């Protein structure tokens, strides 16, 4: 200080113009960058000055001003890496315009940034040396010269470089070539963090380093924006993947998140959702995100905002629909009851936010149908779901007009309820669409058939029903058995009270079947007749006699012939495909399904699977499969008899269908069945039956999409994983071994790769499920789905400390962190000081 005072008293030293030098430190570079700004010189072309001076710009003639505005936009586009857009922006500037220099300059600049230095030079060499674009171009060109790193003096031979240009070139060289900030970052980030040894192996980001990154990013945001962004993103990523809530809290408070979550509310919700007991905090963050942050976020488009909101509500609906009691072996048994109102609310919110969310529509409808298909459910409990299905289908059709499934359902529903006007637009759309789904092409047939059924409601309309039935016969789909048609005609006669004609028709049916070499099955005959009679509105009193043989069959279901059960199931498959199930189907369909499933558990006799019966058996298995009997909600339980059939396609289709019909987490298993999916796809390409051709292909397509998805969606929800324990727990493996006993050599677990299952699978001609051969890799993926406080998720093989309890208040003071006791790191720091 004393020395300085002396200097002040003496004669001030002669001011010398500082020689241009390279910025050796990032701080110096930062200061230099913050000082620079374009300054006009006396006599500079007005148009050039207007590019950076708003006052001059305001005084320009409108034509010239519009061109200057284009130049400004183009320069910004180049800075934002939209080079081609920048060039297009300046195409309208003529060669005679004073701003044509800028057009040449921008063209060269785009090339220069893409390291096309020679091409850039070709453009720039035509620039006027006295103008600003040329000076900038010369500074940029000179910045590449390595001589600048050696000397502070200008090159005497290079007359084109004055001292200003040399300084500018040095600046560019420092910013783009020397980049001292990178060197500083490398020094700091390669330094070993001072972290207590017991925490070192699980810590991904220590407090010191986090603070350093925050300071570094604040300081060099202007000089190295991309580096700063990358470091911020990496710091946040590490803070999210480690179990220390305090580090996470500092990182999320000090570092802004991605554009869709700048305040890190969503990421904190996901983070705290991984902790046991962190659900309340997770919900609080999610609520803040949905109500405050997301609706006001202008950084993303409104459509993206809506889509995010929809997906978050959808995820809530999924969790509400399948609650779990922790990630334990008993989780599924101890799960709380489903709050159906909450599920419905979440689904509705998801659909309101983004009506085109097809996945949400499909899942909502599937969830409702799951309840409607539950034959054990009482009528009073079923009724609310029956009321939900129509609005859900309508919303689906309105939100995703290209989806055929809701339209097909709505046509049936409207015709059933005599709402012809509502049905018409859907029928017209379906008939007009060239959809490859044979059910769509069969819409005219369905219309005629449903009309015939509708006309049976009143006696005065009955005379027209025959015409409609005839029309339906003309349009009968090739992929559908025509056996039922004769029963529909007989039912119409019964409805018309033509008893003799009806009896004759029943006899005729039997005779025709005998003549065709297909002896009639009494049970199928009774079921077809009852189904037809109910659809043709035969009075209840007359239905009673038709019910009797079926009721008797249900009572002695265990004594039914296997092939009779298969034939009935095959008919039910036709009804399912055409969505023509009759009301009484609910009374006995499930019982026949249960019995058939039970029979399929044992080996089939060769006589049961003759080639003639094989197609019926295939249909029966597909029917059972759509009834979800081959899974327990957590894993596949394919019947053993499938192996004896030697039908790999049947197994593959059943597997894929079962998994597609199951809930989302189980659908994730599809990624292990790529070989089966390929088999189904190939079968679809070769199939001659139009229904199966389309169905196989659509199954394969949907399965591929599901397999490609992250099976557990967002990580926040990964903690609800009913499979995590089953795949990694040895006890469970033993349980499975018991299920698939060794004494039955044909039994196999489709997912197991033990020698016996592999051999059984090979005998069945089923390829191995495609799964990672790297055990570590598969373990890692399971571990990744576990909650963060689970040991498997931590990057070490020792017991981790209990993770920091999620807490926000009071805020953690970084200084307190440095000075708090019992921290070996701090004692070292104190010693260092």
């Amino acid at each position, binding site marked *: 200080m004393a020395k300085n005072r002396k200097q002040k008293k003496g004669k001030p030293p002669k001011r010398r113009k500082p020689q241009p030098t390279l910025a050796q430190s990032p701080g110096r570079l930062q200061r230099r960058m913050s000082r*620079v*700004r*374009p*300054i*006009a*010189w*006396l*006599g*500079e072309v007005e148009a050039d000055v207007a*590019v950076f*001076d708003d006052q001059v710009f305001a005084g320009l003639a409108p034509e010239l001003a519009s061109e200057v505005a284009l130049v*400004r936009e183009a320069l910004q586009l180049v*800075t934002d890496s939209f*080079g081609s857009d920048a060039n297009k922006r300046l195409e309208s500037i003529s060669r005679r315009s004073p701003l044509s220099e800028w057009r040449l300059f921008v063209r060269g600049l785009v090339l220069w*940034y893409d390291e096309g230095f020679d091409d850039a030079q070709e453009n720039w060499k035509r620039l006027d040396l006295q103008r*600003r674009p*040329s*000076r*900038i171009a010369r*500074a*940029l060109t000179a910045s590449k010269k390595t001589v600048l790193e050696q000397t502070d003096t200008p090159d005497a031979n290079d007359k084109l470089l004055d*001292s*200003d240009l040399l300084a*500018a070139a040095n600046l560019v060289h420092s*910013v*783009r*070539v020397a*980049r001292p900030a*990178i060197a500083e970052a*490398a020094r700091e*980030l*390669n330094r070993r963090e001072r972290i207590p040894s017991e925490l070192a192996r699980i810590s991904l980001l220590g407090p010191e380093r986090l603070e350093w990154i925050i300071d570094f990013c604040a300081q060099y945001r*202007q000089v*190295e924006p*991309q*580096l700063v962004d*990358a*470091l911020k993103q*990496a710091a946040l990523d590490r803070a999210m993947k480690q179990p220390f809530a305090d580090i996470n809290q500092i990182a999320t408070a000090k570092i802004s998140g991605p*554009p*869709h979550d700048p305040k890190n509310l969503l990421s904190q919700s*996901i983070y705290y959702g991984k902790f046991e007991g962190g659900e309340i905090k997770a919900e609080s963050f999610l609520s803040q995100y949905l109500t405050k942050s997301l609706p006001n976020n202008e950084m*993303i*488009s409104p459509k993206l905002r*809506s*889509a*995010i909101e*929809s997906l*978050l509500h959808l995820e809530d609906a999924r969790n509400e629909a399948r609650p779990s009691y922790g990630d334990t072996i008993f989780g599924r048994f101890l799960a709380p009851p489903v709050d159906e109102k909450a599920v419905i609310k979440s689904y509705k919110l998801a659909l309101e936010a*983004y009506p085109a969310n097809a*996945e949400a529509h499909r899942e909502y409808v599937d969830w409702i149908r799951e309840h409607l298909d539950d034959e054990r459910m009482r009528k009073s409990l079923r009724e609310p779901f029956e009321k939900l299905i129509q609005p859900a289908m309508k919303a689906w059709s309105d939100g995703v007009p290209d989806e055929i499934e809701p339209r097909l359902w709505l046509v049936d529903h409207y015709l059933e309820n005599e709402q012809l006007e509502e049905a018409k637009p859907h029928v017209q759309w379906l008939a007009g669409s060239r959809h490859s789904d044979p059910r769509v092409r069969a819409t005219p047939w369905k219309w005629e058939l449903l009309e015939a059924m509708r006309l049976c409601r009143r006696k005065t309309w009955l005379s027209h029903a025959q015409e409609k039935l005839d029309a339906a016969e003309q349009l009968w789909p090739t992929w559908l058995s025509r056996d039922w048609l004769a029963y529909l005609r007989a039912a119409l006669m019964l409805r018309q009270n033509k008893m003799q004609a009806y009896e004759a028709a029943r006899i005729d049916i039997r005779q025709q079947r005998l003549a065709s070499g297909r002896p009639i099955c009494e049970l199928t005959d009774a079921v077809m007749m009852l189904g037809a009679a109910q659809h043709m509105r035969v009075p209840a009193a007359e239905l009673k006699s038709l019910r009797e043989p079926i009721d008797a069959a249900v009572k002695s279901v265990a004594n039914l012939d296997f092939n009779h059960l298969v034939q009935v199931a095959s008919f039910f498959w036709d009804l399912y495909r055409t969505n023509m199930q009759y009301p009484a189907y609910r009374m006995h369909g499930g019982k026949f399904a249960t019995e058939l499933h039970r029979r399929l558990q044992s080996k089939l006799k060769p006589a049961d699977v003759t080639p003639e019966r094989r197609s019926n058996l295939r249909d029966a298995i597909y029917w059972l499969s759509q009834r979800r009997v081959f899974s327990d909600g957590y894993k596949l339980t394919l019947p053993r008899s499938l192996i004896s059939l030697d039908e790999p396609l049947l197994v593959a289709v059943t597997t894929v269908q079962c998994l597609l019909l199951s809930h989302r987490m189980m659908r994730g298993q599809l990624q292990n069945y790529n070989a089966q999916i390929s088999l189904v796809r190939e079968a679809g390409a070769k199939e001659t039956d139009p229904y199966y051709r389309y169905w196989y292909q659509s199954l394969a397509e949907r399965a591929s999409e599901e397999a*490609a998805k*992250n099976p557990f969606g*967002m*990580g926040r929800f*990964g903690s609800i994983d009913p499979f995590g324990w089953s795949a990694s727990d040895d006890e469970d493996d033993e349980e499975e071994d018991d299920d698939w006993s060794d004494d039955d050599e044909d039994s196999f677990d489709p997912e197991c790769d033990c020698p016996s299952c592999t051999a059984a699978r090979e005998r069945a001609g089923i390829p191995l499920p495609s799964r990672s051969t790297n055990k570590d890799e598969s373990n890692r*993926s399971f571990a*990744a*789905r576990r909650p963060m406080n689970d040991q498997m998720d931590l*990057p070490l093989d020792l017991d981790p400390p209990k993770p920091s309890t999620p807490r926000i208040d009071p805020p953690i003071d970084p200084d307190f962190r440095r000075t708090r006791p019992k921290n070996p790191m701090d004692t070292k720091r104190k010693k260092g000081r």
Partner: protein
Amino acid sequence: MSNEKEVASSDDPLQVLGLPRNATEQQVRQRYLELVREFPPERDPVRFQQIYAAYKSIEDPLMLANRLLIQDDDPPRNWDDILNEQKAKPPRLSVEVLLSLGNQTSAKQPITSEMSDE
């Protein structure tokens, strides 16, 4: 972008475009324009078709939102990898800095309104 062959054979639109899973709308558009410039339809129609299809699918807000919300299970990136990646991408100059490179302090400065106020 990672391996060229790997990218081309991928079904994941973001991988086809060579973007991270959490890419923003702006990044998607920017990368698409870059790739279109690199593989124009007249020069490489197959690749262009791949890029266009990927862009169209990821342009769907629902798909993009899905990508943004999927949690990353990968281990955190090495600091060295990040720095090496950044070394390969020199920063662009801001418009103000770029224009200031043409300054000529040796020439006389015009009297601006700011100066006259002072």
